[in-house]
């Protein structure tokens, strides 16, 4: 074949080599469990001195965050773990030295209010495989997969439609003294967020919620209450 003449063959090999090489290699990708996909983030106002706070109050329910145009009847977020979540959030604050006020007095409010909320997101996409059934993901690159999520490698170069649901648990600590009435802004001093893949195992979810809420407090040593 004429294109195998020395010069062209070398050019072909070089171009093929360069194109394969430039698309990179990620050797540690894959093989992750659902727990590995959990992320805990905490954000706080560095100008706040938490040692000035000693008491907190909490509503006895978890707020479900829905899209603005959603029908409340379409709320499919499970309430199976509300009691566990509220208990763990309260326990964490107690462990940091805060005293819970069970019946807050509007004339003498607690130092902080803890609000707990949950949101969920549905994800869907399509992944097509090239004929050599190898490394590439086309059009949609979920960065991590738990067990049971991996589609097959059809040699004919077919594709797979995937969908999954993620959830985020938010804990907001609000100082009622820092509210701004004209802008209707409340003074959030600290936010903890736990994000992960929603799964069907109750035991697994309960463990992950325990671990995640505890991690929120562990990475927030500045949150310790005043004595």
């Amino acid at each position, binding site marked *: 074949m004429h294109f195998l003449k020395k010069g062209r063959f070398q050019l072909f090999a070089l171009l093929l080599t360069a194109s394969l*090489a*430039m698309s990179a290699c990620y050797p540690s990708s894959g093989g992750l469990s659902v727990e590995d996909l959990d992320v805990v*983030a905490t*954000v706080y106002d560095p100008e706040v001195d938490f040692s000035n706070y000693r008491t907190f109050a909490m509503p006895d329910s978890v707020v479900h965050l829905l899209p603005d145009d959603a029908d409340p009847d379409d709320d499919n977020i499970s309430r199976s773990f509300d009691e566990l979540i509220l208990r763990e959030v309260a326990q964490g604050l107690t462990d940091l030295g805060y005293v819970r006020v069970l019946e807050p007095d509007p004339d003498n409010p607690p130092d902080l209010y803890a609000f707990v909320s949950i949101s969920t997101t549905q994800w869907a996409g399509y992944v097509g495989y090239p004929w050599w059934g190898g490394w590439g993901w086309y059009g949609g690159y979920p960065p991590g997969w738990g067990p049971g999520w991996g589609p097959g490698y059809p040699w004919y170069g077919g594709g797979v439609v995937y969908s999954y649901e993620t959830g985020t648990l938010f804990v907001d600590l609000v100082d009622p003294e820092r509210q701004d009435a004209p802008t209707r802004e409340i003074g959030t001093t600290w936010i903890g967020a736990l994000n992960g893949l929603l799964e069907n195992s109750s035991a697994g979810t309960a463990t992950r919620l325990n671990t995640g809420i505890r991690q929120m407090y562990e990475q927030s040593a500045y949150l310790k209450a005043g004595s």
Partner: protein
Amino acid sequence: MKRFTLLTALFAVFFLGTAVETAAQNGLTSLTYNVSSATGDMAKFVDDTSWLGVQIKGSYFKTENMAFTFSFGWQVFDESNHDTIALSFDQADGDVSGFQTRYVNAFPVLAGVQYFLGESRALRPYVGLEAGFNYIIQRFDMGLWSLKEQRFLVAVAPEIGVIVPAGFNSYLVVAGRYDHAFKAGSYVTQEKFDFTYMSLKVGIAWEPGF
């Protein structure tokens, strides 16, 4: 890993062809396996030793001791951990934790000079210096989230090594090399840094006419 092996084989095929075509030149082609370790601020991002590295280099001798070089390489760094990362924003600070994996794919494409001591077809120590660009793909995965940035960076690479005759116009190559790509562009981290790493190279070299 399959892709890495395939690429190494392609490199060898390409340069065997090159050797036949350039029989009239006085040159040297080398193919090396590189083990690398990040240094400086790059080591704060990815600290584990990279066992995935390859480089192909062509040397054209202008004189008996001095050669012009052109090289292309690929080095893969990756590290997984559960570190907590501190964040800083305009009006807030924070932390984020979770299972994370950091990747750097580095593709240095450089040209330069080498200076060889000794005589042709004998044991020859050498020093070299190359400059060009290093195409860097930096990626950070945490949980369900992935950040990736890629860019061309100006780069230099000094090298010191030795070639040892191994018969049939071929040589064993052992060398140490330092790659330095200067920071520019966007990063997945809040702080930018130069991509710097040291490598131990072991491989083979052969003359045209093999």
